[in-house]
């Protein structure tokens, strides 16, 4: 529950707000920038919710905006913080981008949306597709609308009736992000696969979909011998359209999809992953004169796959200069603003190994504690037509009993580096 919601610029100046309950004095807002600043000075630990003189502040940051909710009650913080993220998502889907300028550019619609997204501080409808049916930027449409879409209060709250496509198609993307942490001694400390099944649905009517995966638990339930590869997902999360009890009972993923793009499910595997791109770094520090790096990168996946847009970022001392590079493949550039050198390889074939040498000059005056700031090497890549876990879409059945149209599902697989694919420097 939130008393009021604010959009603020980075200085903490309010751009637009909605007061839902009127039980917190708006002067509480004036304190927010000061509190943020104070907290930052005291220590660098500013949590996303804190309390000051009886008022509780919960906030998130998005591009050059703060979204802030305040309350005096013991509110459900998980719900409100998530709601703020949802507001960002809805407004982004409405306006393409959400930043300080978009607030003023669209203030009337934002006021309307705020009235619909939340009532008395409780989140209501946050499905963009549904909202767009009765809150639009082109004002002339509004006059036609006499009642809210049934979906707002329906059991199927994410899809409206009467959707029509001439060509019925579903595009299914299986995207796996690999997070990996390698110690300075070369052992894998932590690895996880975060998978996501995204759908682009262009289907008419109210179709019933059923997705079949090579899920080991389901195979075992059905007494099927695990012929071929099956995978064991440690945790699965579903979009609200999926019938959870059905999944609980017999692992069937059945649902009526929202229209357009959405994330159907996400899953996680904690199995030890063999690093797809292995990076070794030898560093030689000649204090006061120069530092040398010898980097080796190896693609440890099958030859028939290729990693694209590989980017290896190696941190260097922030007072380094005069960089010199030598590499057999790709390009290297020095990014002083990040205090790093970036080695880019457009196509990295499976089983290949490349190396790169770099030398940077160092000022003769030593920094007080040069080795202290240890940042890790970061690796980015994407490998199309390949999943690390071996997950496979066995089928996607589409049934619309009234319309009975033929439909085409398309499936794509891709593996990419997650937000934390790092190798610690020695």
């Amino acid at each position: 529950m939130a008393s009021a919601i604010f959009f603020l610029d980075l200085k903490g100046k309010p751009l637009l707000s909605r007061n839902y309950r009127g039980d917190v004095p708006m002067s509480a807002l004036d304190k927010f920038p000061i509190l943020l600043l104070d907290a930052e000075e005291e220590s660098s630990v500013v949590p996303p919710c804190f309390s000051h003189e009886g008022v509780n502040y919960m906030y998130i940051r998005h591009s050059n905006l703060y979204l802030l909710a305040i309350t005096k009650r013991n509110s459900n913080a998980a719900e409100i913080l998530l709601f703020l993220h949802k507001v960002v998502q809805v407004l982004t889907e409405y306006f393409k981008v959400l930043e300080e300028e978009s607030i003023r550019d669209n203030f009337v619609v934002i006021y309307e949306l705020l009235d619909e997204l939340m009532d008395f501080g409780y989140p209501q409808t946050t499905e963009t597709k549904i909202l767009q049916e009765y809150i639009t930027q082109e004002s002339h449409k509004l006059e036609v609308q006499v009642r809210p879409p049934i979906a707002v209060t329906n059991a199927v709250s994410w899809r409206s009736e009467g959707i029509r496509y001439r060509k019925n198609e579903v595009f299914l993307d299986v995207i796996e992000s690999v997070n990996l942490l390698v110690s300075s001694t070369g052992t894998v400390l932590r690895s996880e696969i975060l998978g996501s099944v995204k759908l682009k649905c262009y289907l008419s009517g109210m179709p019933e979909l059923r997705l079949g995966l090579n899920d080991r638990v389901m195979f075992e339930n059905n007494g099927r011998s695990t012929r071929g590869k099956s995978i064991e997902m440690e945790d699965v999360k579903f979009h609200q359209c999926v019938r959870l009890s059905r999944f609980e009972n017999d692992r069937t993923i059945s649902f009526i999809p929202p229209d357009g793009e959405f994330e159907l499910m996400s899953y996680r595997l904690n199995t030890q992953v063999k690093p797809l791109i292995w990076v070794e770094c030898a560093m030689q520090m000649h204090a006061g004169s120069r530092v040398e790096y010898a980097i080796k990168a190896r693609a440890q996946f099958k030859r028939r796959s290729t990693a694209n847009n590989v980017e290896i970022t190696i941190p260097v001392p922030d007072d380094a200069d005069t960089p010199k590079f030598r590499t057999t493949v790709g390009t290297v550039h020095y990014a002083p603003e990040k205090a790093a050198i970036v080695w880019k390889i457009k196509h990295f074939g499976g089983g290949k190994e490349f190396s790169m040498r770099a030398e940077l000059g160092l000022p003769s005056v030593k920094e007080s504690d040069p080795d202290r700031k240890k940042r890790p090497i970061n690796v980015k890549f994407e490998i199309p037509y390949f999943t690390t876990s071996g997950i496979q879409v066995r089928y996607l059945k589409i049934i619309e009993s009234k319309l009975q149209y033929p439909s085409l599902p398309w499936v794509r697989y891709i593996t990419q580096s997650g937000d934390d694919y790092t190798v610690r420097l020695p």
Partner: protein
Amino acid sequence: MSDAKFFAKGKAAELRMELKSDKKDKNFARRKTTLKRIVANMTMNNNEMVQLFSDILECMHLNSLEIKKMCFLYLINYCRVKPDLANKALPILLADIKDQSPLIRALALRTMSCVPLATYTQAIVDPLHKLLGDSDPYVRKTAAFGVAKLWAADSRLAEKSGLIEGVNQLLVDDNPTVVSAGLAALTDITDKSEGMKLAIGYQDASKLIKILPDCNEWSQTFILNALMSYTPQDPAEALLMAERLSPRLAHSNAAVILGTIKVILYLTHYVSDDAAIDMLVRRFGPPLITLLSKPYEIQYVALRNCFLILQQYPHILQSNVKVFFCKYNDPIYVKVAKLEIIFLLASEENMPEILRELREYASEIDVQFVRKAVRAIGKLAIKIEGSARDCIDTLLDLVATRVSYIVQEATVVIKNIFRKYPNRYESIIAVLCRNLDSLDEPEAKAAMVWIIGQYAGRIENSDELLDDFLFSFKEEAVEVQLALLTATVKLFVQRPAKGQELVLQVLKWATEETDNPDLRDRGYMYWRLLSSASGNPEITREVVMSDRPAVTVESDRLDEKTLEEMTLNIGSLVSIYMRSANQIFKGSKSKHLEPSPALRKAYSYGPTEDQQMNVDASSLMEQGEDDDTAAAFAGPNAFAAHGDLLSDE
């Protein structure tokens, strides 16, 4: 396309001209534009706009939803400044509330219940009765929240009006969204109400769980929240409900997951079968880990709640401590929350990997985080005796970096290690003594001085070291001065010949040249002790070198009663602050377990009438000691420990 142009500062007179102009205005295009400018100026807090109230009233009659919305927004914004004019809008709203379109009925209702004027509050009672039974679920749901708003504005009127019973009726509505809105409204009211309490029986609770899948994600969180008002009367019933809820753990909405965990944890208090409880709570592990890949703010809420859940059931993630290892780019608040959990899950088996990891954190950039990591290493030495040696070696390794704040932090924790394991690991004193120059913080200095005093007999040049510290005695912080005083006396007790000169000097300073009463008192106390017991140095020694109470890190754990309250509040602010609700939220009801035949042990029975009446004086005292006195004493410290396990307190 862009509406930013409307944000030019406008004059009221000019805008009025625009609104009133007789010129042709097809589809009200001109007036729409003008209203946009007015709303934009309102957004910029241009107070001149309030002068346009009567002009806005005229626009409210226009047959355009877009115009209506802007006018109503204006009304909500300025009604307090111009109550008389605002009252003139009342008939318009009352007419709209009977409009054919459910959208307009709901809009008018929402707007009316947002206007904090007595006239509005009174005028809305009758329409609310009607709208609670509206044919459109969208309106009924809006009406449910309308009653909650009315109650917040005027609780007596709301209770007298019979509207609350009306909301109660919504709980048997055909439409799940309406049911959940009714529950949200009732929860909102009963959370604050003195007299009313939400109580849900088995049949109703069972029905609520059944309709959960038919509600949108937010409605699900309302229902989950309301399920906390269901008190199982039978262990089998509680278990069944918990099992029926558990599929919700696969929902993608983090608030639904945490809400489900909250209700299941609550229900376990009424389940008798320990094995069944174990099965239930083990299912929390994977979803909790998955929450760690959500946005940072959500991760933070999840981590704080993980900390609570793991205090009670550490085994559900003990073998997974690695998932809590920090990512390099995590914000500090996430890293610190992870560090607390790593500490909590540390055991002799996983210590090697934890120590390596903490050693890594100690070389990061953020000073606060580095300090906490160092402190955690020291505390682990105390928590897990079998790993103490390894922890100490890691600390010494860190001291060798000679980075000032690391050395200081290490000194402080090593002092505690000495207290926990007296007369062991003394070889490390020499290492510390080589780094005395790095110490400039009072806490670290006091810790070092304590070590020197305690081991004055064994440190070869303890008198010289103390003498060095005493050089700046008068400029030191009181805590250092107190430590120096005690340490010098200890030196004297253990090596009278070496300490004699120093102790006289310090006692003279402490008793004659200070304004601080604590220091003076302690000075006199030692003075008298030394002079009166001079015949018997054994007695002096016993007093000065007496055993200290053992140090534990268990004090960082929440006591069971607080923990129980926290787990009943999973996902809420209380669970993040880790402080009891009545400490932070004025007049809030703190959650407790309702008594029932199925209830296992509880630490917080609800204060029913009878119990309160029957409390006799002695038990009142006991209770006082348990709750209030203890809280008053330990208040700030307890918070530091709970709120931030590895704080600098």
